[in-house]
C-alpha cells in the first residue's frame, strides 16, 4: 500500500461541478483514508481519556507537533489488563479513519501498550503473545501431560551450552533407561531462530519419540531473546509430542515457556520433570511383585488340592494333564524363589478334605468330632474337628 491516492481511480467525482452534500464529502474522505492506510503503530502521549458507559474508550494521542482523536472499542480494550493513565506514553496499533458524522479524522485503536513496558522488542513480544492467544496456543486446555516413563527424549539446544550437560547428567542419574536424542541448534545470535525452528520441525519426524525439551541456560535478556520469537514459539506449539521449555534461570519467562506443555525454570528442572526416579520406580515395581505373589498364592491353595488327588480320583487322561500342570507349577516355583517377595508361598497354606476327598472350605462343612485330612506343603496329617 502506498500513500493516499486522492485523484486516482475516481477523478470524475472529484472534478464534478455539482455541489456535494456534506455527507458525500465526509463519506468520500473516509473511503480515501480507509483505503490509503493499512494498520500501523503510532507512538504518542495519551491525554483526555474518557471511558463511556458502553465500555468504549475515547482519548487523544499527541506529541509536540500534533494531536489526533482516538477511539478504542470495548471488544479491543477488554483484553487490556489496565486502563492507560493520563499522560502515559503509549504504542497504539491503529487503523486511521474518518468519523463521517463529525467529519473528524481519528484513529481506531486495536492495541495499546505503555512504552514503559519496554522498547521495540517488548512491543513485538506483546504482539506475538496476542497473536498466539488468538490462535488458541496459550490455552491451558492444550497442555498435554508428560509421559511417566519416557523411552525417547529429544533435546533441542546448543551442543556447547551448559544446558545439554545438565540435562544429560540428570537423566543419566534418574532414568538411564531413556535415550536422549540431541538436535543441535544455535540458541542465540543471527541464525538461532531458523536453526531452532528447523530442529523443532525435525523432532516431528523422529519415530517413537515420547517428549521434547527445548531451551538453554542462563544469559542476558538479549541472549535469551530468540525464545521470545513468535516463529520459535509456533514451532514448539506444533511439536507432536509433549514439550518442556526451559530457558535461562528461574526468573526468565519466555514465549516458548507459554506455549510448551510444561515450563521448567532451568534445563536441570526440565530433566527432573521429564523422567521419573529410578529408585522410586524400583520400589513400586517391588510392590507390584508382592501383589502378584499374593494373588497367585491364594489361587495355589486350589491348585495344591487338585494335585494331591491325582493318584486316586482321576482318570489317566486327566492325570497327564495334571502332571503337566504339576511340572508347570514347579517351574513357576523356581521363578518364585528367584523373586524374593514370592516366598509367601512357603508361609503355610493348607487344604482340608473330608473322608471322601471333598475340600472343606467353610465352617458349616465341619461337624463336631469329624475326622478330616490336612494337606500341607510336604505331606498330609489327619485332624479332628472340635466345634463345641
Amino acid at each position, binding site marked *: 500500500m502506498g500513500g493516499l491516492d486522492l485523484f486516482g481511480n475516481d477523478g470524475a467525482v472529484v472534478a464534478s461541478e455539482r455541489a456535494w452534500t456534506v455527507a458525500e464529502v465526509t463519506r468520500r474522505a473516509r473511503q480515501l483514508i480507509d483505503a490509503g492506510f493499512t494498520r500501523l503503530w503510532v507512538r504518542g502521549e495519551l491525554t483526555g481519556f474518557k471511558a463511556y458507559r458502553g465500555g468504549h474508550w475515547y482519548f487523544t494521542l499527541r506529541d509536540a507537533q500534533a494531536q489526533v482523536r482516538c477511539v478504542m472499542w470495548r471488544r479491543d480494550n477488554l483484553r487490556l489488563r489496565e486502563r492507560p493513565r493520563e499522560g502515559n506514553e503509549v504504542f497504539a496499533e491503529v487503523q486511521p479513519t474518518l468519523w463521517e458524522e463529525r467529519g473528524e479524522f481519528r484513529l481506531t485503536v486495536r492495541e495499546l501498550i505503555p512504552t514503559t513496558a519496554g522498547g521495540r522488542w517488548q512491543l513485538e513480544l506483546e504482539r506475538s503473545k496476542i497473536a498466539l492467544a488468538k490462535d488458541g496456543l496459550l490455552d491451558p486446555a492444550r497442555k498435554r501431560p508428560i509421559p511417566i*516413563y519416557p*523411552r525417547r527424549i529429544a533435546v533441542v539446544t546448543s551442543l556447547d551450552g551448559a544446558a545439554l550437560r545438565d540435562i544429560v547428567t540428570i537423566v543419566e542419574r534418574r532414568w538411564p533407561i531413556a535415550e536422549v*536424542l540431541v538436535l543441535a541448534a544455535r540458541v542465540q545470535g543471527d541464525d538461532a531462530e531458523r536453526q531452532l525452528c528447523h530442529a523443532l520441525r525435525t523432532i516431528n519426524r523422529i519415530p517413537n519419540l515420547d517428549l521434547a525439551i527445548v531451551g538453554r541456560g542462563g544469559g542476558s535478556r538479549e541472549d535469551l531473546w530468540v525464545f521470545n520469537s513468535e516463529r520459535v514459539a509456533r514451532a514448539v506449539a506444533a511439536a507432536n509430542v509433549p514439550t518442556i521449555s526451559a530457558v535461562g534461570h528461574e526468573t526468565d519467562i519466555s514465549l516458548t515457556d507459554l506455549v510448551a506443555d510444561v515450563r521448567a525454570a532451568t534445563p536441570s528442572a526440565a530433566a527432573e520433570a521429564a523422567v521419573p526416579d*529410578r529408585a522410586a520406580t524400583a520400589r513400586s515395581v517391588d510392590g*507390584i511383585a508382592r501383589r502378584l505373589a499374593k*494373588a497367585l498364592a491364594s489361587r495355589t491353595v486350589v*491348585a495344591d488340592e487338585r494335585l494331591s488327588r491325582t493318584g486316586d480320583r482321576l482318570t489317566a487322561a486327566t492325570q497327564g494333564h495334571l502332571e503337566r500342570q504339576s511340572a508347570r507349577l514347579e517351574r513357576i516355583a523356581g521363578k518364585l524363589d528367584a523373586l524374593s517377595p514370592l516366598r509367601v508361598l512357603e508361609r503355610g497354606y493348607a487344604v482340608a478334605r473330608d473322608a471322601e476327598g471333598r475340600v472343606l472350605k467353610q465352617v458349616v462343612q465341619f461337624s463336631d468330632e469329624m475326622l478330616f485330612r490336612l494337606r500341607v506343603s510336604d505331606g498330609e496329617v489327619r485332624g479332628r474337628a472340635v466345634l463345641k
Partner: protein
Amino acid sequence: MNASKPSFREELERLEAIVRELEETDIDLDRALELFEEGVGHLKTARNLLQQSELTVKRVLEEADGTLRANDLTV
C-alpha cells in the same frame, strides 16, 4: 532411528493389568498360572530395564536426502 528396547511403560502397564485380573476376578487355575507366568516375564523385563545404568546419548543429523541419522554423542 527405530527404538529396539522394550518399553518400561508397556511392561508395567501389562504387569498391573495382570495383577488386577488375578486379584479381582474369579478365574480358573489354568488362567491364573498363565497370567502369573506372563507377569513374572514382565517383572523380569522391567527389572532388567531398571538395572541399566548407561544412558544413550545421540545426535540427530539430517542426510542430504532428508533422512535422519543418529550418531553417538559424548557430552
